[in-house]
């Protein structure tokens, strides 16, 4: 009973002490929270953006096709089932040489049906297929497979544009990864600094606490709780900002360019994916806040 009440007193003390620290800390708290918030926000936005760009490039890449030209006299429909079963193949479209010739002639402005019929006899074309891959990266692999098929004469896929698109995507991925990493490092540095400054600002107090017989845990737990709290608050704030700016970005994009990049926003709260970002931000915030205060406090532990 006595032990329990003592334990309860201790918990109460820790909470009160943390509360007191927050109240008396004044703008020092805001410094810590705002820094952490801005950094978490940047991380969140960059993750969102990299997801969005990924999805966008993905959908763009999906529109790129591989053109397969068969040897003369080969029928595309014969090969179609074989091609469909290849890995990473998303869609196969058959274009017979008649279709192709008709289209060509029409494009050239020969609209006279009779002339077309005449020309069809001289059709110099071959059967062809348009194959779509399920991702931009898989194009090369699919093309390689196609080349090995019997009856395939030529395989064209991608021109410079396609290649450069893939490269842009790669670059974006690298960039966002790098920025996220650098930002995380900055976050740790800034919070550690801030909390160490808070500890330093209360150095005299800590000194006196030690002199009247408080143990290290007793002295430093409130600081660590405080750091943890900073993390939680910042994460919540950052998530709010991310949601807000998403909306804004979306609206801006829709106004500025005709084509809506629907992939930028993913606001379906029933999906598991929707909860991934806030949970990640929360985890990151708490981790950064707590571990930073631990680092800050560790440095000043002496008697």
């Amino acid at each position, binding site marked *: 009973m006595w032990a329990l*009440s*003592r334990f309860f*007193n*201790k918990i*109460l*003390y820790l909470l009160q*002490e943390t509360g007191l620290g927050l109240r*008396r800390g004044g703008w020092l708290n805001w410094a810590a929270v705002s820094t952490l918030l801005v950094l978490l926000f940047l991380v969140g936005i960059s993750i969102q953006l990299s997801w969005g760009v990924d999805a966008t490039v993905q959908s763009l890449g999906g529109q790129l096709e591989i053109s397969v030209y068969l040897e003369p006299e080969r029928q595309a429909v014969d090969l179609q089932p074989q091609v469909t079963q290849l890995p990473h193949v998303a869609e196969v479209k058959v274009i017979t040489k008649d279709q192709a010739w008709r289209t060509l002639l029409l494009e050239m402005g020969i609209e006279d049906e009779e002339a077309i019929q005449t020309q069809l006899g001289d059709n110099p074309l071959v059967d062809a297929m348009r194959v779509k891959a399920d991702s931009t990266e898989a194009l090369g692999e699919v093309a390689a497979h196609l080349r090995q098929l019997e009856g395939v004469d030529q395989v064209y896929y991608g021109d410079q544009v396609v290649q450069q698109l893939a490269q842009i995507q790669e670059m974006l991925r690298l960039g966002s990864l790098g920025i996220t990493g650098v930002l995380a490092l900055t976050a740790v540095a800034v919070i550690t600094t801030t909390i160490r400054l808070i500890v330093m600002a209360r150095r*005299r*107090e800590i*000194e*006196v*606490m*030690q*002199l*009247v*017989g*408080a*143990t*290290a845990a*007793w002295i430093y737990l409130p600081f660590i709780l405080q750091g943890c709290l900073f993390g939680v608050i910042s994460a919540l704030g950052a998530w709010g900002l991310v949601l807000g700016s998403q909306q804004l970005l979306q609206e801006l994009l829709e106004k500025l360019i005709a084509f809506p990049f629907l992939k930028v926003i993913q606001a379906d709260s029933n999906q598991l994916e929707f909860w991934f970002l806030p949970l990640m931000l929360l985890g990151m915030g708490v981790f950064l806040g707590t571990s930073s205060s631990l680092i800050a406090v560790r440095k000043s532990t002496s*008697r």
Partner: protein
Amino acid sequence: MISQHLSYKPRFHSSWTAIASPPTLPTQPDPGGSLGFYGSSQTRATQAVNSMVSLRGVSKVFPNGSLVLRDVDLEVRPGEFVFVTGVSGAGKSTLLRLLYGAEQATRGTVVVDQVCLFSSEGRRPYRIPPRPLAMLRRRLGVVFQDYRLLANRTLGENVAFVLRAQGLSPAEIRRRIGPTLKMVGLTEKRDRFPHELSGGEQQRLSLARAIVNMPVLLLADEPTGNLDPENSLLVLQILERLNSFGVTIIMTSHDPYLVERAGHRVVRIEGGHLYDMR
């Protein structure tokens, strides 16, 4: 009011002293002779009963080379009232700091309330670890020469602080603060902050904080420096009342009249040596 926490019992407990097993008072010749280092526990027990503070051959040299104490011996029995005098810069504060572990001796043995704080005997110097030191400090009361008040806490919180550091319940803490502040005459200023106090009021607050947890040993460094004669006398009376309840008191003072008037034991530091004056 005060007397209710004051049923003085000499402490024989210290379960952790046994665990930490510091080298205990090896300057005393071992009566068993053959028991060696860890066998001297009996010596310690006898020692413990009749000594609250025990310095043996203590020297203190600061890193910058200034030698403040040389080969000082001091025994203070439980319940004693000792004045420490000496000119400015003699080493009075340094002596007290050795007792509450804020400074570490260079050589010798320092034992306070049966806890060894430092000993240069043994193969390498023993220094008390942080946790036992914290536990010892909870049984001490210290009035610092520069007060060391917490600037951003009110008077009441400054005093409560010591008790909270020990995990007492808020109700118990509230119950104790009132009488303590009343004793030093600061009841009305309970909710002020230290910078709103006069120098003497700050000094009395420091005293209140030192005595609120009923220490077994009170170390008061110049507790009347900024007080007028009447208030000085008041402080002396408070200390004497505590002493009459069994609290051991070591107090430094510059005021020869106060020292004279009190009529207690006086030691004087001069040239690094300690002289028993009365």
